[in-house]
């Protein structure tokens, strides 16, 4: 009877966890020197959704991914990932959690001394004791899902930028993670590659039941695939909501960002002393 009660309690706990956001950020503060990158921000990332975090260059979007991945520690506030406060985890616990998270780096970050096959097989060989024949089947399946099964023998230096990101994506999903963090996946891509990547992200998120966090400043692509959007600037969350809500926002800042206007609440000029005084000094 006690065993049944325990199982029931665990099931209730699991069910409660499933209702909670997969990432829950509260009162996050992070600064580099005197420059505050995040100043008391709250963000919730819902399970199974694609959440886009957008903002101008230099607002700390990549830093936010590194904070969520535990590569940086916040100065204040908490970041709960799947219920665990990531900045308080010990080295071993952090690495256990990271087995369930993947980060797709902006340039792919493929290992340049090994080919595409070995890159995708890398996490499988490091974290499992699967026989090589099974690893091969898994690698082929992952590469097939990103359309690059034919590139299995190529070295990273032989891949185009878009192909490198797709290989990195195959590597990122090799261990079937619960969440994938994408750092500027569309930057510098031609329209066809961008279209392929957009479709791929959506398909993978649905088919693998992932949670995706997409950091980007490519407005149209993000609004097209995201379920929820956060706009950040100056260390604050400026706006958040569904893509429809963001599109119909009355905020001047949001409109400037979405329309790509040169000047507005976000100044064209970086903060500087008075121009005439500086010229005469």
């Amino acid at each position, binding site marked *: 009877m006690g065993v049944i009660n325990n199982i029931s309690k665990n099931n209730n706990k699991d069910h409660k966890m499933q209702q909670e956001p997969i990432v829950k950020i509260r009162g996050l503060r992070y600064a580099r020197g005197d420059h505050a990158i995040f100043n008391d921000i709250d963000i919730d990332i819902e399970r199974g959704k694609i959440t886009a975090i957008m903002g101008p260059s230099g607002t700390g979007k990549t830093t936010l991914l590194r904070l969520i*991945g535990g*590569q940086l520690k916040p100065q204040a506030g908490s970041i709960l990932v799947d219920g665990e406060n990531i900045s308080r985890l010990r080295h071993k616990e952090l*690495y*256990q959690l*990271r*087995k369930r*998270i*993947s*980060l797709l*780096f*902006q*340039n792919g*970050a*493929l*290992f*340049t001394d090994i080919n595409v096959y070995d890159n995708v097989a*890398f*996490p499988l060989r*490091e*974290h499992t004791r699967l026989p090589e024949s099974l690893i091969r089947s898994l690698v082929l399946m992952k590469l097939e899902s990103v359309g690059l099964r034919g590139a299995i023998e190529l070295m990273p230096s032989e891949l185009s930028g878009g192909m490198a990101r797709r290989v990195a994506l195959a590597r990122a999903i090799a261990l079937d993670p619960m969440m994938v963090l994408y750092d500027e996946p569309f930057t510098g891509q031609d329209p066809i590659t961008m279209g392929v990547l957009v479709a791929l992200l959506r398909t993978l998120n649905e088919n693998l039941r992932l949670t995706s966090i997409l950091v980007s400043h490519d407005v149209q692509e993000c609004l097209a695939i995201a379920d929820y959007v956060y706009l950040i600037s100056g260390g604050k969350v400026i706006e958040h909501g569904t893509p429809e809500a963001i599109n119909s926002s009355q905020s001047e800042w949001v409109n400037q960002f979405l329309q790509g206007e040169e000047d507005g609440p976000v100044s064209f000029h970086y903060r500087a002393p008075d121009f005439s005084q500086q010229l005469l000094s």
Partner: protein
Amino acid sequence: MLTLLQQTGIRTLSVLDRIGRGTIFLLNILQGIPGLLPRFGLVIQQLYATGVLSLVIILVAGLFVGMVLGLQGYYTLVTYGAAESLGIFVALTLVRELGPVVAALLFAGRAGSALTAEIGLMKATEQLSAMEMMAVDPIRRVIAPRFLAGILAMPLLAAMFSAVGILGGYFVGVGLLGVDEGTFWSQLVAKVDFYDDIVNGVIKSLVFGVAVTWIAVFEGYDTVPTSEGVSLSTTKTVVHGSLAVLGLDFVLTALMFGDD
């Protein structure tokens, strides 16, 4: 005056900070070494990269250093009528000093700089960060095999340097200058002591291997992830590595041969 004091203070703190981080880094590497035993293939790969690929420069340099020693030694010894001691002169110079020291200097320039540049570029292209995010510790997976391979390669390279150097001395002394072959080898065998000379030489090259490889992997791991940063770190590896070898050589020589 105050500015000078401030700058000295800042520089001292910065040096102490680097020493501290370097020491913690070394302890982390040492913790990772037992984990390499079941995956010794990683070390073999690095032995090839650091050791086998350094062979050409080590062998060629060893041959010419030995030949120069043969030539210089002969002209000096012959004035005292001691040309038959050429074998012992060449062998002791190489085994005790030049073998470990010159091989370590060449190792710092060839393999040390390559290690720093490789690790620095892995950092600059976020490969080390990617590894961390895949829950793979880069210190254990990337750094520890390179460190262990460097330590294992160094005495082997120094031994080959000395062996080829002795052959170079033999070629010049016996082959070109007419020193008696039997005397050359018999003096060498009789006077070179296994423990005092060869083992001490091996200990020296092991210590140099630890110092140079530690500096190389730390500079790479600690580099500023830009092209200038990697370039600066690579230069530092060669300069600091070479200075460390020369400084340690003096200390070790004083300790090992001070009572002779």
